[in-house]
């Protein structure tokens, strides 16, 4: 049992809880940051621990180790047998799971409120005391290879996406898949996982989010009891990834796979992410994505490509600014069967050109503002979604204030902001255009 003993017994109440509506935020002496979201409509609680480490923090040749460790975190500790945590949660009527992304790894349970103490005790236990037997880690590596076979290797769309991302990032690790390249996953070892664990799984690299039928005072008491004694990792370096060089050359690719049933064209552009205290540009890009590709019947791309002399069965745009480093703004067109990909892409470009020349429709802009306001009401109905919102934001380096001001940032976006963001992001030198195809056809060379 490795437990952290504070050198000074008097540093117990160090931080002052910040109150903001029904969301409370505090930090323990050992660095654990916590957010409590109160919702007393049902006696249920969501308990999440977000580690500020993800696949983009992996070293060369070790792709997949963040996700590998996520799996191994269910293999037991000095106090818990392999699988016991999940079984205990289930035996108490709860559910649990975990996920890994580029920037974070998160573990969560959903359970009756009066079992919060139990799940918190177990989650705290595995933050520092994981044990891995020889059998467990090798079998789990096989499971992950099966996971990769199921989710990626069996799905041409997923393989295409993997290749596009690899082409999008010239230097940054966002170009490496979260699950890892197969040949590297096959070589991951117990020691790789444990080294990762010891360094990054620590209270000073974690965010606790508890949401539901709880009070902030009660959560803080439990957090101090369970997480408070854990030792932080000393000298944890700030998260610093290698940076992208200037992207000066457009990239184009085709991905051919006989399993492809529905060819499509996707183009991603490098785009800025939400930054602490500086979310205006990301807000403008979020509104831009909604204008261009939110609703098929009312968006710019939907109207241009899916109606009238329709070229496409689907057209859309997407952007997610929740990331540590530069993210992507993506366009997609799924053409009708009789429309070649080149024609679909040309129609997409024409629609974007027209939008850049004419600007957004005033009525559509107003409707999007209505949706943003209503979205905040609907979001309150889903406390797990709110918990996710805070956990993810804090895990990528944003603060509680950034989460709370995000709706205002969206509402502050003007049509001029959207156009400025569009002109900046739509730079083909920083874009990857990919065609997913069933077979090579003459259209590849146009």
């Amino acid at each position, binding site marked *: 049992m490795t437990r952290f003993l504070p050198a000074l017994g008097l540093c117990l109440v160090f931080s002052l809880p910040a109150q903001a509506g029904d969301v409370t935020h505090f930090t323990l002496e050992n660095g654990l940051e916590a957010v409590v979201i109160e919702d*007393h*409509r*049902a*006696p*249920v609680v969501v308990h999440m621990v977000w580690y500020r480490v993800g696949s983009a923090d992996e070293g060369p040749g070790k792709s997949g180790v963040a996700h590998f460790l996520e799996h191994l975190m*269910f293999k037991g500790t000095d106090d818990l047998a392999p*699988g016991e945590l*999940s*079984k205990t949660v*289930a*035996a*108490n*009527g709860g*559910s649990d799971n975990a996920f890994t992304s580029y920037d974070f790894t998160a573990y969560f349970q959903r*359970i*009756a409120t009066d079992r919060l103490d139990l799940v918190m005790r177990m989650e705290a236990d595995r933050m520092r005391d994981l044990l891995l037997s020889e059998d467990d880690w*090798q*079998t*789990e*590596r*096989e*499971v*992950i*290879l*099966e*996971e990769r*076979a*199921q*989710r990626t*290797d*069996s799905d041409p769309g997923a393989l295409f996406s993997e290749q596009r991302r690899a082409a999008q990032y010239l230097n940054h690790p966002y170009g490496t898949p979260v699950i890892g390249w197969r040949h590297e996953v096959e070589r991951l070892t117990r020691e790789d996982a444990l080294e990762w664990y010891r360094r990054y799984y620590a209270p000073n690299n974690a965010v606790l989010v508890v949401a539901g*039928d709880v009070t902030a005072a009660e959560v803080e008491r439990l957090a101090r009891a369970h997480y408070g004694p854990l030792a932080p990792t000393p000298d944890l370096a700030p998260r610093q990834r290698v940076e992208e060089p200037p992207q000066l050359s457009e990239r184009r690719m085709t991905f051919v796979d006989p*399993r*492809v*049933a*529905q060819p499509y064209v996707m183009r991603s552009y490098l785009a800025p992410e939400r930054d602490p205290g500086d979310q205006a540009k990301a807000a403008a890009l979020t509104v831009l994505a909604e204008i261009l590709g939110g*609703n098929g*019947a*009312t968006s710019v791309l939907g109207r241009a490509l*899916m*109606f009238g002399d*329709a070229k496409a*069965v*689907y057209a859309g745009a997407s952007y997610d600014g929740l990331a540590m480093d530069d993210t992507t703004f993506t366009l997609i067109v*799924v053409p*009708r*069967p009789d429309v070649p990909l080149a024609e679909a892409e040309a129609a997409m470009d024409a629609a974007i050109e027209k939008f850049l020349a004419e600007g957004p429709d005033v009525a*559509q802009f107003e*409707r*999007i503002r*209505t*949706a943003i*306001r*209503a*979205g905040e*009401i*609907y979001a309150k*109905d889903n*406390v*797990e979604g709110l918990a996710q919102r805070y956990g993810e934001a804090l895990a990528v380096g944003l603060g509680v204030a950034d989460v709370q001001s995000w709706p205002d940032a969206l509402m502050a976006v003007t049509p001029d902001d959207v156009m400025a963001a569009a002109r900046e992001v739509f730079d083909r030198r920083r874009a990857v255009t990919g065609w997913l195809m069933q077979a090579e056809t003459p259209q590849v060379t146009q």
Partner: protein
Amino acid sequence: MIRLVVGALLVVWLALPARAGVEITEVTSPGGITAWLVENHELPFTALEIGFRGGASLDAPGKRGAINLMTALLEEGTGEMDAQGFAEAAEALAAQFSFSVSDDTLSVSARMLTENRDQAVALLRQALVAPRFDQAALERVRGQVLSNIAANEREPNAIAGRNFRALAWGEHPYGSSSDGTADSVAALTRADMVEAKARVMARDRLYVAAVGDITAADLGAVLDDLLGDLPATGAALPPRATLGLTGGVTVVDFDSPQSVVLWGQRGLPMNDPDFFAAFVANHILGGGGFSSRLMEEVREKRGLTYGVASYIAPKDLGETWQGSVASSNDKVAEAISVIRTEWARMAADGVTDSELAAAKTYLTGAYPLRFDGNGPIANILVGMQLNGFPRDYVNTRNARIEAVTREDVARVVARLLDAEALRFVVVGRPIGLN
């Protein structure tokens, strides 16, 4: 003026999340439409859920895919509004409507802000009562459906599902995809859409629930506005389906590194006296995620898969006990062998006391966690009505789970589970499977 029949004695409390007190009231509108209501005024919106029994199984002979296409067209224009006009109107109100259809049910889900609920109801009414089904929308959505059908031709999970359905249910509507085929969908006309709607969207098969910021009186008025002008009756439900599964393995060749597997045998209906015993048994066998026997044996001990599960599938007109797994081509034979062994082991030996206790704790503890938002609660309430459960089912359901004994489980698994009768449909290039 609005005559409401709201019996105070008909109020039922959901006991489990006792403090939260989900209170289900039955509301009958002046026009005679009933709905279940959970009033909660904390958030200024209402979730409304509507289910029409029969779903896509009511496709007329030779018109497979008509109800699916019709459902997708409900939001594609009504009255003076075309598809774009309808979408704009919904966006302007921040009202969210979704329309979907399964083998047994056509579902309409709506979320409407209190501040403009009357307008939102009026808009949804237009879509439900007077959709345009205009030719431009029909062609556009037909193209999307055909695209899906083409994609499913090459998607291993869809291929497995299609083959399993056909083996299990043959010519019954359950035996084919509700999307229809490329040929059947290509032949559908506007008249088919009108007929498809008349077959399924009728008041004699309607189930409604509302949850959120609405009173019983207001809901009564909404029910009549929204649904009062639908036809009184629709098409007769299809007959019960006859299960055609036999034991064995069906391999469908597909060039992929991994095989996708569906398997199944006969199941049991929800009104079977042993349904809850079977439900608990399945949780232990393969329904309970990491705590299930199949996950333990196939994934945790042997690393043969990322996921394996079994489930009881009691449809309105026929029942199966099924499962699914995906495993590399060189491992799938072993995975299937382990699944067969576990199936037979449970049939012969039943479950242990500790397994039964753990399953009960989970199932009873997890039940109240489902009631976590206006939309999910509305959905559950319509599901209960479709299954013929009374409102107090929310209070008695856990007692029925608790009442299941080891003997009950032993009896039902001995009666039903049959490893020899399992049909496995394997899509891939499996090694060592005949």
